[in-house]
């Protein structure tokens, strides 16, 4: 039996639209398990990113609740949510969103500095290790505008995990990358997951979906399908692709 790391109960998100309500998330009940590489798929506009942002506390819910470590984070005020982001949750965006006037090293380090439980020296040590691991040491002093998109995204992943969060959220992390960079980033995420990092990622990229240990399908604001997979092995990619493809076809993808 896996440990639940994050739960959603009756989670709803609606927007006012043309005088009516546009329901993006519709009473979702969902558990995310520790150690899983959970990937949410779905058609464009199905509410994947909204689910990710609402579950991570970056966006508010219209109804329902998100529970983390027994606390309903949907009721958290800004200070508590900020604290959550400083240590418990990490986030990777599709557009990287690195702070443009900070070097790659500083972009990663700033998140570490925010965490009051980690001493400054320890942050520096961790950042160096992470950048080494991500192959970014030679360009650590460069500004985001001076490195490639893939390098930016790797730095963004390093930033997201520098505080060793319980759960890493990733919103289409390969969406803005070319094929080569996509593979690099996916390998990195897979490696992190194998080291024990729980990941919740949304994507519509089949290649990215193959890295999942648990696949969820979102349609019309509801989870309509689920597929459990063994941990990713590069040699089994072909058979894994067939399996996922078949499952997605059954979901009318």
């Amino acid at each position, binding site marked *: 039996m896996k440990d639940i790391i994050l739960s959603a109960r009756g989670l709803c998100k609606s927007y006012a639209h043309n005088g009516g309500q546009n329901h993006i998330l519709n009473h979702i009940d969902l558990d995310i398990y520790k150690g899983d590489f959970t990937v949410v798929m779905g058609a464009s506009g199905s509410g994947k990113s909204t689910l990710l942002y609402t579950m991570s506390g970056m966006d508010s819910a219209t109804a329902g609740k998100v529970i983390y470590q027994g606390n309903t984070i949907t009721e958290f005020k800004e200070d508590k949510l900020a604290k959550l982001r400083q240590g418990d949750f990490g986030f990777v965006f599709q557009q990287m*969103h690195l702070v443009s006037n900070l070097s790659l090293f500083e972009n990663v380090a700033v998140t570490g500095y925010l965490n009051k439980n980690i001493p400054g020296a320890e942050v520096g040590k961790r950042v160096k290790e992470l950048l080494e691991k991500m192959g970014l040491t030679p360009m650590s002093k460069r500004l985001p505008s001076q490195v490639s998109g893939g390098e930016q995204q790797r730095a963004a992943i390093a930033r997201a995990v520098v505080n060793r969060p319980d759960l890493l959220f990733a919103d289409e992390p390969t969406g803005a990358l070319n094929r080569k960079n996509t593979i690099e980033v996916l390998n990195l995420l897979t490696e992190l997951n194998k080291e024990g990092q729980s990941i919740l990622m949304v994507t519509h990229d089949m290649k990215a979906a193959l890295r999942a240990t648990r696949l969820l399908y979102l349609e019309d604001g509801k989870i309509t399908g689920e597929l459990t997979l063994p941990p990713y092995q590069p040699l089994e990619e072909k058979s894994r692709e067939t399996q996922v493809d078949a499952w997605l076809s059954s979901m009318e993808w």
Partner: protein
Amino acid sequence: MDILTLLKANIKYKKGALISVAVLMLIVTAALTAVISANDNFGRNLRDAQKSVDTGDLVLMIDEKYATDELLNKIKTDPTVGRMRDVKNLTSFSAVTNGKEVTNRTTFIAFNEKERQFFLFNKKGTGFVTTIEAPGKGEIYVPFSFQQLYNCKIGNTFTIKTNHGDVPFRIKGFIEEPFTGGYFLGVKQVYISTDDYNKVLAGKADDVSVIEQKLTSSHMLHIYQKTGSTLSPGEFKRELSKSSGISDYGTTLSKEDAIGYTLIFNNIGGGILYVFILLLFFIVLIVMGHSISTGIEMDYVNLGVLKSQGFTSKKLRLLFFLQYLLAEGLGAVLGIFVSIPFVRLLGGIFQPITGILATTELSLVKCLLLLAGILLIESLFLLVKTTRIGKISPVRAISGGLASIYFDSRLKAPIGKRALSLSLALRQFTSNKRQYAGTIAIVSILAYFMISMTVLANCMLPESVQESFGGVVHDVALALNDSFQMDKAKEIEKEIEKISPVKGSLYANYKYIAINGEEYNCVIYDDPEQFKSILKGRAPLYQNEIIITEILSDEIGKSIGDTVILSYHGKKGEYLISGLYQSMRDLGKCFAMSLAAQEQLAEERLTDGYIQLAEKEKAGDVVSMLNEKFPSLLKASVSKDEDGIGDMIQLALNTIAITIYTVSILFILVVVNMVCGKMFLKEKKDIGIYKALGFTTRSLRLQFALRFLILSALGSAAGTLMCLLFNNRMLSMLLRTVGITNFTTDFRISTILAPTALICTCFFLFSYLASKKVQRVEIRELITE
């Protein structure tokens, strides 16, 4: 039509920035209109009043004994003179009002209801009464400046001390006397009934044989230049002095000089405010430049799209031009209306100093012409600033626009866990220095002016500064009688030493002596080494030496090493100019010599003594002792600030300083709001990222405010440096009209720290408040669906 549609949309979209430009323009216009109108009103009212009371082009105040028929005829028949009007009066040298000694010479004139002699203020001092009631028995009309000089109120007593007993009067009202009624003029005309003049006062006038005269019969000769004469007031005075020798017998004052003295403070205050407004105008240009640059940067994509749709660069520039010009025009028009209460406010400040009724007319034509000039300059500036629009490439704009690119900076400070907000704020600044250069320039201008005004408002306080302006620092003032001789000084000081050690003493006399035929105030010291405000050369140590002010040097065209002829009551002597000094006496038109040097011209006594005590608090005891022990030699009093700047001037300087502080703070508020608004839009994404990383709204706002604190600290430092470099020069230029030609700023930590701390606090607070929008940034905005 297309441009109108875009214009409407742009105004709506950029209303924050345009409102800020309009507000800045409103402040500049309001300040400019108020200062110009107030100064014009006083100038016009003063000239009109002089015309109404028929003030002569030159007025000779002369003792009865010197006003011989021969002299009067000489004046009347001079080819430069058109006509002459003789106003008989009694001049009092000793009077007390409202319990205070009157330091001005007072000329008593009999009220004449058949001619306009003055204007009578109503009880509130807000206008004139139409019919002037003749003063009754024991009643007196005094100039409006008496309210400020001696805190007089209607009903107070005004007592003249004569050698035949005191004569009390009751103040019936305050008058506008447009010749010598101003605060700075040493003679004051007062009006009493003809009966009092003839029956009560005239009989008490001293005979010419009395040495210590307290009340003398005198004449005020109003001399009018011949119609069509092209002589300047100065030339007229010189020519007349040459032919009739009037300067040897009495005191002359031209109508133009009287106007200069009366409006002296308006001119200084106005000068300071004009310079300040000019700098505010530069600030408006800087702010507008910043707004246009960031506006183009942020609208880069839209402008590219519009170009791709067929809009020409010319049309797009016109769009920018029109929206800013509209904002400026609106601000300027509103500023004119807003200036109305400020004209009244300035009038309220200057009326007690000038003694002239403050009116509230706006100098519309002059202001509109000036505003047209300002708008023209700003239009040119707008045209230059919008040239960047021509360089926008539609293709580049549409394919992603002008992303904000940050560059490495040599000033890059490390980001650390300690003081994270401060180090991030510093990074924001160092990586985008050019964007903040304008703001730093604005702060430096405001800091410069605020420091400068603080220096000026405090400059009369330190004793050393007082001395450098030609003042005499003292704790006890002595009015010396005829029987006083210098050998008595030692005896007097010995008695003082029994109460408190004497830190310094000085004995002096002041009189009007003609230099090359023209009369100027002369300061005579027993010890010439005590002239402490010498700028060039040395003190007048020898019997044939004088020192003159730089203003006088310019006026008479003589300098160190030159010789001049001094004349006084018929006696003449040749003197060498040994040095240049500065003094505020007679607004800088004065000279000085030693007691020994004066003896060539007159064997006159010393009239004033100044004692500086080591124990200042014992001044009262010293005064009582002196008055008790030496009643025949002197009359002692505790020092009252008559040589330096009085309370009123201090108050007026403080008011100008407060005005500059207030306007500066308003500017800071508008500038911060505007720059913050632009920065917020530009950095919205970064704010979202920081929030996503776990920064709280509070810490992000603190970062914002810290950045402005850094800017304001740098700007303040630049302003302080500017002040160190230029303040003396600027204040010397502005204060030349009061005799200060070499202003030496007494920089103190407090005069620099107080304004800079205020600026930094305002920037920090206002930017913290303006950054409230950070709260509204949703991390959701980072989502790419």
